[in-house]
């Protein structure tokens, strides 16, 4: 329910934003294109209005209807920077790279982060806490692009053990061959680490705090009175309870990961939609910006949906109906 609501809201924003912008975005782009040396016939300009699903002379509900129809056909308009390529084509080309980066970064940060947080809660003592907690807070507040920048300077520029840019080296042929796969991994390690290390700090802190809370619940005391060892309680008994809030945390953090990913991809000139969106913003490519915005929204919604499903599956108190 909430999900559909959020999605409709995202659609509405995507629909309204160009109409709120000063002037007429189609006109702006037409001007841009002409300035860039393209010659546009009146038909072409008409076509552009159609591609945007944008006709200021029609009543607003017809415009919205047209917009939805265009969307359903996967039509997000045409890019100005990459003219005449369509926004959906550009996104389809770049999205797999971003999904690759983000999903691995989230997996390698959330899974170990959760376990570290879990055990950190089990081993609570003042000394450990006085070092561990500030350290984690520090790590989780490092901007990931800045970390990426340091990695780039140190490991790529100085030590030259990692490539400076791109998703794979131009000496390999894309396809299911080992050389390509290794090259892709080689190029992805630094961006993934920049995203993962920072995110992991947050996951550890969150899991630890939740776990400390759960460990203070009476049912944990009872379990101890029943003779369950602390280790067993942490691992199998209370761990599952603390996991639930951390799944929600994971979904919430997706927004931050995607946001941070824009800058990280930009720094590593990585051909994902993060980098694409930076290019789109600096080039004032409205249709591309809006298309990417929609994709980000969908990605975050999907993450939330998956978290909800997982939550419902794990927590008996939640049912989806």
């Amino acid at each position, binding site marked *: 329910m909430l999900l559909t609501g959020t999605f409709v809201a995202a659609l509405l924003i995507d629909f309204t934003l160009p109409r709120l912008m000063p002037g007429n975005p189609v006109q702006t782009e037409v001007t841009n294109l002409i300035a860039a040396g393209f010659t546009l016939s009146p038909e072409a300009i008409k076509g552009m209005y159609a591609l945007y699903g944008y006709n200021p002379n029609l009543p607003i509900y017809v415009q919205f209807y047209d917009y939805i129809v265009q969307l359903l056909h996967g039509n997000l308009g045409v890019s100005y920077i990459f003219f005449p390529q369509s926004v959906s084509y550009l996104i389809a080309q770049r999205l797999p790279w971003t999904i690759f980066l983000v999903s691995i970064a989230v997996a390698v940060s959330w899974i170990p982060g959760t376990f570290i947080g879990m055990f950190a809660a089990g081993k609570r003592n003042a000394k450990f806490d006085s070092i561990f907690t500030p350290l984690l807070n520090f790590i989780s507040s490092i901007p990931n692009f800045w970390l990426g920048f340091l990695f780039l300077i140190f490991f790529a520029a100085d030590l030259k053990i990692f490539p400076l840019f791109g998703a794979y080296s131009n000496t390999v042929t894309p396809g299911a061959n080992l050389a390509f796969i290794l090259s892709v991994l080689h190029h992805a390690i630094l961006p993934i680490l920049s995203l993962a290390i920072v995110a992991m700090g947050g996951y550890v802190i969150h899991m630890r705090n939740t776990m400390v809370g759960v460990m203070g619940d009476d049912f944990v005391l009872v379990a101890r009175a029943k003779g*369950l060892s602390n280790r067993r309680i942490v691992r199998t008994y209370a761990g599952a*309870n603390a996991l639930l809030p951390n799944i929600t945390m994971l979904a919430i953090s997706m927004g931050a990961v995607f946001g941070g990913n824009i800058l990280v991809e930009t720094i590593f000139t990585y051909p994902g939609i993060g980098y694409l969106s930076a290019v789109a913003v600096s080039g004032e490519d409205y249709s591309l910006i809006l298309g990417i915005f929609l994709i980000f929204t969908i990605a975050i919604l999907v993450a939330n949906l998956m978290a909800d499903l997982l939550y419902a599956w794990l927590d*008996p108190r939640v049912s989806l109906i």
Partner: protein
Amino acid sequence: MVGSPWSHEVLKAQGVNVVFRMRSSAPKGDHLASVARESFYVKALRNVDFQVLEGESVSLVGGSGSGKSTLAKVFLGFLRPKEGSVAYLGNDIYRLKGRRMREFRINVQPIFQDPYNSLNPARKISHSVQLGLFLHEMSKEQKEERVARTLEMVGLTPVDLFLDKYPHQLSGGQRQRAAIARAFIGQPKVIIADEPVSMLDASVRADILNLILKMKQSKNTTFLYITHDLATARYLTERMAVMEQGEIVELGKTEDIIESPAHEYTMRLMNAVPDIWHHGSRAPDRPVVPPRFGVDSDGEKDETSGYVDLGNGHYVKRG
């Protein structure tokens, strides 16, 4: 004190002190801000001597923050006191190992106040109750059988209906029944119940108390009942200790204390329950023989203990 041979003391606390460090959190801009971040200490238990005797029902009464729950945690092995010793059947609880530890865990079981917090929300009732047999050597079938039988005893019937329920699907009273089943299922020697009915609706309190009474009588379980409510303490227990600010200020037979409270704090507690207070009178002045609880019953003089022996096991802290 009524001559109680060492072996009859199931639980025994001697000279127990528990101090909590609290970090003050005065809001910023407050005039207290200058002391913010400084820590101060709360003496939750001060030099507590107390024992639970085999087979008896004893209550620990006192106002909020008097240290009752803290003493319960000390007895359950959850909170090692800074000073003093705590023993289960003569062995220091905080040094138990192996077989002895196992025996302690099987035989000393808690029932907590909040049935919403004391059952794992992620586990079915059958799982939570069966946890009470965690250290018991039994086959899975035997355990399941025992769970069913115990659920029936605590009135969660039809059993099949409740086995697969989660805590959130039960009422507060039903949850507390499940918690009681879990506490009694392993047939422990001692049950420590920390305000087991204070969070329940008044309409089910009597039922739950009667259930506890029935369960403990059928197994002759030793029972430590923690409450701020003198009326239920009188109903359930024959001996009583009154706590004020971490100290036991009065100790004796429940009837004696309620009939003739000797400590000013006990009287104040009773004022909150007018119907049992009425026939009480001020304690007569008796010869002063300062005792130490549980130590030598021959009335040996110990000027340091600070208690007055009123006879019949009735002691009151000197004012």
